C-alpha cells in the first residue's frame, strides 16, 4: 500500500533490444513470470517488446496507462543513463507524473556481461522484482525550475575556445574567455601550415583572434586562471586569478619598446617550443591578442637582483608597474565550456630516439616553429647549428602513442601532420624524406588525397616502427649522420638509414593538470586523463555535470576542423540553454520534516554545498532546495530519520533490496 492509499497498478515492460537482450535473457519468460509472480505486488500488465524505445514501444506504454488505468511503469531495458528521459516522457504522455517510471538495466548489467542464459534470466527477474518493489513507493515529483544566467565562461583560448566564445557572443550573450598564457591563439598560433589544404595557419587564425579580442560581448582574461567554481547549472560563480602582468593595461599601447630594450634573453619553452628565445618582458608573438606584454618575474633581472628597470626607463607611457599584484575576480555565469587543449608528449622519455641527446632530433612542435616564417629561423629548415640545410630528413610517426610503454591511444593527427612535414621539406629544401609509419591513417575530407600527393612527390614511405636513432656509425656512409634503425616490414629486413635530421611526431597528451581541472569543475577524466563526455557518440560535448561542456583536444586528440566543430557545437548547446531562460532540475532533493527534527545539527556540517541552515529560534534545520544537490548524505546521517530524500527514500531503497532478494527468500522457504 502506498502512502496516499492508492492501490498500485503497475505495468512491466521487458525490452528485447533486438537480440541485445533477447539473445541472452529469455524475455518472454521474464514477462510472463512478472505478471504471475508479481501480481500480488500490483503488476497488472506485463509485456515484452522488440524495441521499447521505438515510438511504437512508447505508444504501448501510453495506451496501457489509459486502458488498464496504470499508475506506475517499470521498464526493463538498457541503462537509465540512456533512456530514462524517453520513458519518463512516455509515462507523462500517458497522463502520469513522469517520475512514476523506473528503469531496470537488464542490458548493461545482465545480457551484455553474462553468458549463461538461465542465470541471466534469473538475474533479470530479481532485478525486475526489485524495480517493482521500489516503484510502489514512488511519488509524483515536480521538477524544480531555476533561472539561467546569460553569461558563459569559456576556459582556454585556443581555436576551439575562440570558436565557442565567438558563436555565443555573436548570438548576443556575454562571454568570459579565460586563457592561461599572455595571448589567446593556442597551439594553432604556433603552426605555419595546416593540413591538407596547406592554408597559412596565422592567416586564418589571426582574424578570429582579433575578433575575439574586440568583440563587445567577450571579456578577455589572459594570463589568468580559474581558481574556484561554486554553484550549479544556470548559477555558477567562478573566481578568476588575473596574474599580475606588471603592466598597466590601460596605459600600454603595445609599442614593443620594452621588449626591444630588455637585456634578459630567455629560452621560450611555450610558444617557441624551446627552439627560440624571448625577453623577460614579452608578448609571445607579434599578432598576440591582447598585445600587452607581461613581465616574467621568474626571469626578470629586476625581480632576481633588485636592479635593472630598463623597461620602465624606456616605456613612453609609464605603463610598467613592478608593484602590481594578482587580482581575484568573481564572475556569475550560467554555463561553462572547457577547451583546455593538450600537452605535447615529452619525447625525451623515448631514450632510444635520442631526443635531448642528439642535436638534430626535433619534436613536431619544434619543427612547426622551424618552418614558421615568424619562427627562430624565419621559416628555413636547418639543423640545430642554425645554418646547415639537411639533405635527408626522417619523420617518425607514432612517438609516444600507440605504444603501451607510453600512451596506448592513437593521437589521430600525427599521420597527417607527418605528411605535411614531408611536403614542407620537399618544398623548402628539396631534401630526401623518409616517413616511418606503422599504419597510415587518413580518414578525413581530402586527407587520403594528400597522402597520395606525397607518394607522388617521391616521399620514401617505410613501414616499420623505428627501433632506434643513433649517432654510432658502423661505416663511412653513416659517419656524422643520424642513423635510423628500423625493420622495413614490407621487405622483412632490418635497415639502417642515415639522415641529417629527424622529426618526431610526438603524441598529444592530456594537459598535465587535467585531473585537477576536472576536480575543479566537478567532471571526470578517463584513465588516460582526457575529460569525459556524456556519451561518446551521441553527446560528445556535454559532460555528466549539467551546465559544463567540453570542446577540442581537452576531450581527446583531434585536428583543427574537429576542434572548431566541437567549439561551435558546445556553443550551440549553451545558446539553447540560455534562450530557454530557465532549466528544470531533477527534483532529487532532501528536505527536513520539522516535527521530527531534534535540532542535533549532525547534518549541518555534512553538506558541502552549505544548503542546510539552522534556525536557532525554532531549534530545527532546514534545507535550501536551490542549493541542495541531492547526494543524500544528510538523509543517511539523520539519527531521527527526519530528512527525506526524494527519489531515493528509505522506503524505496529498502523495498528494492527486499524485491531483489525475493527469489532467494522463496528458495530458502522451499529448502
Amino acid at each position, binding site marked *: 500500500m502506498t502512502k496516499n492509499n492508492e492501490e498500485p497498478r503497475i505495468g512491466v515492460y521487458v525490452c528485447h533490444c533486438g537480440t541485445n537482450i533477447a539473445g541472452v535473457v529469455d524475455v518472454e519468460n521474464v514477462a510472463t513470470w512478472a505478471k504471475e509472480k508479481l501480481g500480488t505486488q500490483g503488476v497488472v500488465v506485463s509485456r515484452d517488446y522488440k524495441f521499447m524505445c521505438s515510438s511504437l514501444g512508447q505508444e504501448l506504454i501510453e495506451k496501457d496507462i489509459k486502458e488498464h488505468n496504470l499508475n506506475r511503469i517499470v521498464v526493463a531495458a538498457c541503462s537509465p543513463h540512456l533512456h530514462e528521459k524517453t520513458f519518463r516522457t512516455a509515462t507523462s504522455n500517458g497522463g502520469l507524473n513522469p517520475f512514476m517510471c523506473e528503469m531496470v538495466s537488464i542490458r548493461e548489467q545482465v545480457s551484455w556481461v553474462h553468458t549463461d542464459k538461465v542465470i541471466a534470466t534469473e538475474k533479470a527477474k530479481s532485478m525486475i522484482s526489485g524495480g517493482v518493489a521500489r516503484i510502489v513507493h514512488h511519488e509524483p515529483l515536480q521538477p524544480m525550475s531555476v533561472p539561467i544566467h546569460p553569461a558563459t565562461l569559456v576556459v582556454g583560448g585556443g581555436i576551439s575556445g575562440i570558436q565557442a566564445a565567438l558563436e555565443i557572443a555573436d548570438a548576443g550573450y556575454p562571454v568570459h574567455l579565460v586563457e592561461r598564457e599572455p595571448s589567446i591563439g593556442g597551439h594553432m598560433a604556433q603552426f605555419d601550415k595546416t593540413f591538407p589544404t596547406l592554408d597559412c595557419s596565422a592567416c586564418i587564425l589571426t582574424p578570429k583572434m582579433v575578433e575575439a579580442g574586440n568583440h563587445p560581448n567577450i571579456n578577455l582574461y589572459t594570463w589568468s586562471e580559474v581558481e574556484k567554481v561554486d554553484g550549479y547549472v544556470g548559477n555558477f560563480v567562478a573566481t578568476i586569478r588575473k596574474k599580475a602582468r606588471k603592466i598597466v593595461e590601460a596605459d600600454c599601447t603595445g609599442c614593443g619598446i620594452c621588449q626591444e630594450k630588455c637585456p634578459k634573453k630567455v629560452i621560450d619553452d611555450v610558444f617557441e617550443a624551446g627552439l627560440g628565445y624571448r625577453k623577460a618582458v614579452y608578448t609571445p608573438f607579434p599578432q598576440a591578442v591582447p598585445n600587452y606584454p607581461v613581465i616574467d618575474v621568474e626571469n626578470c633581472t629586476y625581480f632576481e637582483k633588485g636592479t635593472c628597470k630598463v623597461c620602465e626607463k624606456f616605456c613612453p607611457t609609464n605603463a610598467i608597474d613592478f608593484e602590481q599584484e594578482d587580482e581575484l575576480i568573481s564572475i556569475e555565469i550560467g554555463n561553462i565550456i572547457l577547451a583546455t587543449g593538450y600537452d605535447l608528449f615529452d619525447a625525451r622519455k623515448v631514450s632510444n630516439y635520442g631526443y635531448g*641527446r642528439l*642535436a638534430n632530433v626535433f619534436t613536431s612542435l619544434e619543427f612547426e616553429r622551424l618552418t614558421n616564417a615568424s619562427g627562430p*629561423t624565419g621559416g628555413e629548415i636547418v639543423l640545430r647549428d*642554425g645554418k646547415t640545410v639537411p639533405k635527408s630528413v626522417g619523420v617518425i610517426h607514432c612517438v609516444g602513442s600507440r605504444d603501451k610503454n607510453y600512451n596506448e591511444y592513437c593521437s589521430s593527427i600525427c599521420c597527417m601532420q607527418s605528411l605535411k612535414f614531408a611536403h614542407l621539406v620537399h618544398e623548402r629544401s628539396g631534401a630526401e624524406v623518409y616517413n616511418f609509419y606503422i599504419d597510415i591513417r587518413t580518414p578525413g575530407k581530402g586527407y587520403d588525397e594528400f597522402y597520395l600527393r606525397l607518394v607522388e612527390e617521391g616521399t620514401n614511405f617505410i613501414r616499420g616502427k623505428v627501433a632506434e636513432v643513433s649517432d654510432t656509425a658502423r661505416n663511412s656512409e653513416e659517419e656524422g649522420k643520424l642513423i635510423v634503425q628500423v625493420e622495413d616490414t614490407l621487405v622483412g629486413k632490418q635497415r639502417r638509414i642515415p639522415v641529417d635530421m629527424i622529426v618526431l611526431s610526438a603524441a598529444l597528451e592530456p594537459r598535465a593538470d587535467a585531473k585537477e581541472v576536472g576536480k575543479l569543475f566537478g567532471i571526470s577524466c578517463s584513465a588516460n586523463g582526457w575529460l569525459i563526455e556524456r556519451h561518446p557518440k551521441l553527446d560528445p560535448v556535454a559532460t555528466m555535470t549539467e551546465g559544463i561542456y567540453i570542446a577540442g583536444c581537452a576531450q581527446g586528440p583531434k585536428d583543427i576542423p574537429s576542434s572548431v566543430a566541437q567549439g561551435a557545437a558546445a556553443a550551440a548547446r549553451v545558446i539553447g540553454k540560455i534562450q530557454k531562460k530557465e532549466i528544470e532540475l531533477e527534483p532529487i532533493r532532501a528536505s527536513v520534516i520539522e516535527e521530527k527534527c531534534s535540532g542535533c545539527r549532525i547534518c549541518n556540517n555534512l553538506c558541502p554545498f552549505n544548503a542546510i541552515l539552522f534556525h536557532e529560534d525554532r531549534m530545527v534545520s532546514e534545507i535550501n532546495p536551490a542549493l541542495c544537490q541531492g547526494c543524500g548524505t544528510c538523509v543517511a546521517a539523520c539519527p531521527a530519520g527526519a530528512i527525506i530524500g526524494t527519489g531515493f527514500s528509505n522506503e524505496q531503497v529498502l523495498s528494492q533490496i527486499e524485491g531483489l532478494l525475493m527469489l532467494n527468500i522463496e528458495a530458502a522457504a522451499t529448502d
Partner: protein
Amino acid sequence: MSDYIFYPGCAMESSARAYDISLKAISKTLGIGIKDVDDWNCCGATEYLSISATPAYALIARNLALASRQVNGSNTVMASCSACYLNLTKADHNMAVDPKFGIKINQALEAGGLSYQPGALEIKHILDIMVNDIGLEKIKSKVKRPLEGLRVAPYLGCMVPRPDYASRFSDAEQPVELDMLLESLGAEVVDFPLRTACCGGHMTQISPDTAFDLINRLVKAADDQQADLMVTACPMCQMNLDAFQGEMNHHFKTNFKMPILFFTQLVGLAFGYEASELGFGLELVSAKSALSKLGMKAPESDSAAKVKKPPKGELPMPAPLPKMPRSAEKEATQ
C-alpha cells in the same frame, strides 16, 4: 650493517674472479655482510631456457627455495652476474604472474623436498644495491683516492636494466645508475650511448662473426670517446670484450687495446685498496697503462669543449631529463 644473501653464480669462481675478489674487498668498507646461498646451483644461463622451460625454471627455483630458507631479517638476494640476476628475477616474476606455472614449478621442487613462494625474496643486482640501497652519498664519503683523470666508458650490458620486472633502474636503455656511481668515485664518464647494447652473449660460441661485430661496435665506440677503459657489471660482458678482443682485432684487422674491468674494481681503487687486492692483472687486455693515468689531470676533451657557449645562430637544445637513479625518481613522484 645490512646483510645480504648472495648468489655468486658459476663465473665468480672462474672467469670473473676479479669481480668476486673486488666485491668482497669493498663490502668490508661498506659494512655489508654477504652470505652465500647454501649449496647453490648454476642458474642455467640462457642455455637451459632454450632447451626446456620447466626444468630450466625448476633449476633456477631451487636456488630461490634454498635462499628463502636463509631469510633472517633481510630477504634481499644479491646477484652479481647479469644472467643470474635476470634468471632469478624472471623465475620469481613468472611464478607470480602466472600462478598455474608457479604451481608447476613448485611441484617439481617438491620432488626435492623444497618449495618457493613467489615474492618471498627481493632479488637485486649489486649495482642496484650500491646506488639505491647504500646510496651515492655514503659511497662518496668512503672515497679516499678519487679516480681523477680516468676516462671511463660505462658499460652495463643488457640483462641488468632489461626487462627490469621490478622497475629498479631509471631507464631500460640509458640508465644513469652506473654513470652516477662512477662519477661519485671522481672518474670522468664518457658519452657512451651503447651502455646497454649487447656484447654478443653466447654468440662467441655459436656465430663468432656476429659476436665479433657486436664486440667491435662496443670497443670502437669507447675508443672513439678516448676512454681509458670500460667497466662492466657482468661476467659475460667482461669475458666477451676482454678475452675475445684479440680474436675480434684479428677478424677486423684492428688493434684495439681496451681494458675491460668490473665496476667493483674501480670502487675498490677509489676506496683506497691496492690493485693487487682487487684482482687486477686477471684481465687479458692489461689495465696497467690506463691506471697509470690515475691522479693526472685529464687533458680537455672534445666533449667537454662542446658544452661551452653555443656559437651565434645555433638553436637551443632541449634540456636533458634530470639525472636521478630510480629510487630518487620514485620519491620525487610521490
